[in-house]
């Protein structure tokens, strides 16, 4: 594998303005690297900041957001000047597969027209050449090319998701961000879509970040996974490593809560709820729900620690400086 990561974030923070002058600290210091051809999962409950993180990678945040930190795409800091520096990379270098089952597609335009749109916009193809490429892309994702002139409502949920993938590939990006690509699809279709994503990333040499709350999905598809909680990455490493040797209680409980790793819907359910992020939290945010919390947890925020090769976790249990202190 090449040494320079295709995508790297360093201490990424995102805040959202709330009424009354307050702020929601949605993403708190996220740092990770993505290598060429790698598939990484970003897992967590609703509201943990995973969607906001990948939106930030493309600069798709609303005007109520403030961002800090760096996002390096092929070595270049794309957030250096905000919208100015990030927009040229959109779709050409980094693209997103939105939840196609929802309104990612404009209902009054044909699917084909919408896939051709970024091609024509960025000058990679136009007119007849673009239409031909659109058909090719559709075939690539398993949709008959002649459906290019149909409208979104004429596609089933699964087909729309495939079309969304075709759309994301329109300008041959290096990085694919998939946001909950299989939610709201039935199990059989889910499996097909996941298989498609794996095949495409392998054949086209793409890197992918797969955002989901569904653990079995990540296990099926990804080489690595980052587990997020309350806006932070609490554990990150190879799939098998974090499965067999989870170093954060949340990760462990997530895997335990999943009845059957390759079975039907696994709704992540751990008692309690994630904390609100509109005020500073003292100590480790997982403390109230953690079954192995001990004395430093409520007061001291855990450091990011290396616990193995390519394996990191944010938990006092791994911190020898802390664990040895008398209780």
């Amino acid at each position, binding site marked *: 594998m090449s040494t320079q990561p295709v995508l790297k974030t360093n201490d990424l923070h995102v805040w959202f303005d709330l009424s009354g002058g307050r702020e929601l600290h949605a993403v708190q210091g996220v740092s990770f690297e993505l290598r060429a051809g790698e598939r990484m999962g970003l897992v967590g409950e609703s509201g943990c900041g995973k969607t906001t993180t990948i939106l930030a990678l*493309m600069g*798709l945040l609303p005007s109520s957001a403030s961002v800090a930190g760096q996002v390096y795409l092929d070595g270049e800091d794309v957030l250096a000047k905000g919208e100015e520096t990030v*927009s*040229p990379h*959109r*779709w*050409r270098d980094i*693209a*997103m597969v*939105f939840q196609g089952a*929802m*309104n*990612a*597609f*404009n*209902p*009054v*335009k044909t699917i084909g027209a919408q896939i051709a*749109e*970024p091609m024509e*916009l*960025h000058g990679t193809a136009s007119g007849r050449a673009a239409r031909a490429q659109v058909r090719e892309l559709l075939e690539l994702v398993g949709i008959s090319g002649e459906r290019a002139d149909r*409208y979104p*409502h004429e596609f089933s949920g699964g087909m729309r998701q495939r079309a969304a993938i075709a*759309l994301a590939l329109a300008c041959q990006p290096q990085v694919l961000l998939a946001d909950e690509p299989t939610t709201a699809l039935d199990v059989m279709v889910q499996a097909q879509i996941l298989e498609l994503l794996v095949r495409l990333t392998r054949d086209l040499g793409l890197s992918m970040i797969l955002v989901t709350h569904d653990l079995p999905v990540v296990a099926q598809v990804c080489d690595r996974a980052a587990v997020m909680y309350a806006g932070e990455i609490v554990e990150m490493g190879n799939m098998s490593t974090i499965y067999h040797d989870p170093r954060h209680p949340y990760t462990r409980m997530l895997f335990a809560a999943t009845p059957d790793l390759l079975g039907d819907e696994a709704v992540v359910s751990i008692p309690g709820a994630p904390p609100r992020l509109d005020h500073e939290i003292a100590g480790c945010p997982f403390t109230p729900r953690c079954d192995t919390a001990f004395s430093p947890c409520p007061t001291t925020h855990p450091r990011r620690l290396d616990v193995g090769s390519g394996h990191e976790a944010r938990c006092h249990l791994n911190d020898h400086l802390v664990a040895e202190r008398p209780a």
Partner: protein
Amino acid sequence: MQRSDYILKRTLFALMTVFVAVTLNFVLFRALPGDAVTGLKCHNCTIQFKEALRHDLGLDKSKWQQYVIYLKKLSHGDMGTTFIGNKPVRGELWEPIKKTLGMITLGTVFSIIFGVFTGVISAWRRGTVVDKTSVWTALAFYSVPTQWLGLMIVYFVADRVGLPHGGIQSPDYGILGNPGTFDFLVDRTAHMILPALTLGLVLYGDYTLIVRSAMLETLGEDYVLTARAKGMSNWAIVWKHGFRNAMLPVVTLIALSLGFIIGGAITIEYVFDYPGIGLAIVDAIDKRDYAFLQGAFLVLTLSVILFNFIADLLYFKLDPRVTT
């Protein structure tokens, strides 16, 4: 259901509404005291004479029979004769309608263009001063009583820009020999401008708010985020994804509103003494010429139904999702 079935359904519905409207028209005006004969002024008229006349005109038949006669006459295009002057209603309606159409078209086109433009800008610059000013101005003009706006314009604007206070023809028109077509157009237009402007100002506010609302709704849709993700510029997003989608409900709403513009035109023509259908209606109200009013309102109601129907067809054509 097929898309062609939709057209059929809407046509049937429109025809049914026409029938209901025609019947209601009859019922409403027959409920009024007095008929063609009551208003007759003749010094020899005894009660027996009037009764005989009534019999001749078929006004002493039962309501049901009169209804049938009414329908029969309508199917031939006969809308009866006016109380005042005994002229065929149909003929009396045509001239004023022509004059009104010109003025209304001018005013409506202005209001639509201006309304859509301000609505889009408002939505684009949501929350800014531009937006707030635009919305409040629209609301203000929308709340103003039409006749009062007309009076204000006549008082404060007319003389300043050298436009006539009212009427449709200048007193000195043709004074210097035969006026040509050009002179005719200039004179007519000069008289149409202020009434049309009044109409436009009163109507545009509604469109601004509708367009703004539709655009905001559209701009919050996921496919707009997708468009932004693709790297499209703001203006391209607004035009290609925002506008086209937002215009869907807007076009329908505009078409629907067209049917009701006559209501505003009535007061405007009264204020500007513009001899269109509106002024004719006001006169008829004053003189209790119910035959004329019946004909006039039938025409107006039918135009509302017509525009509703057009709106249905338009929506159908523009939205590929509509199947029933």
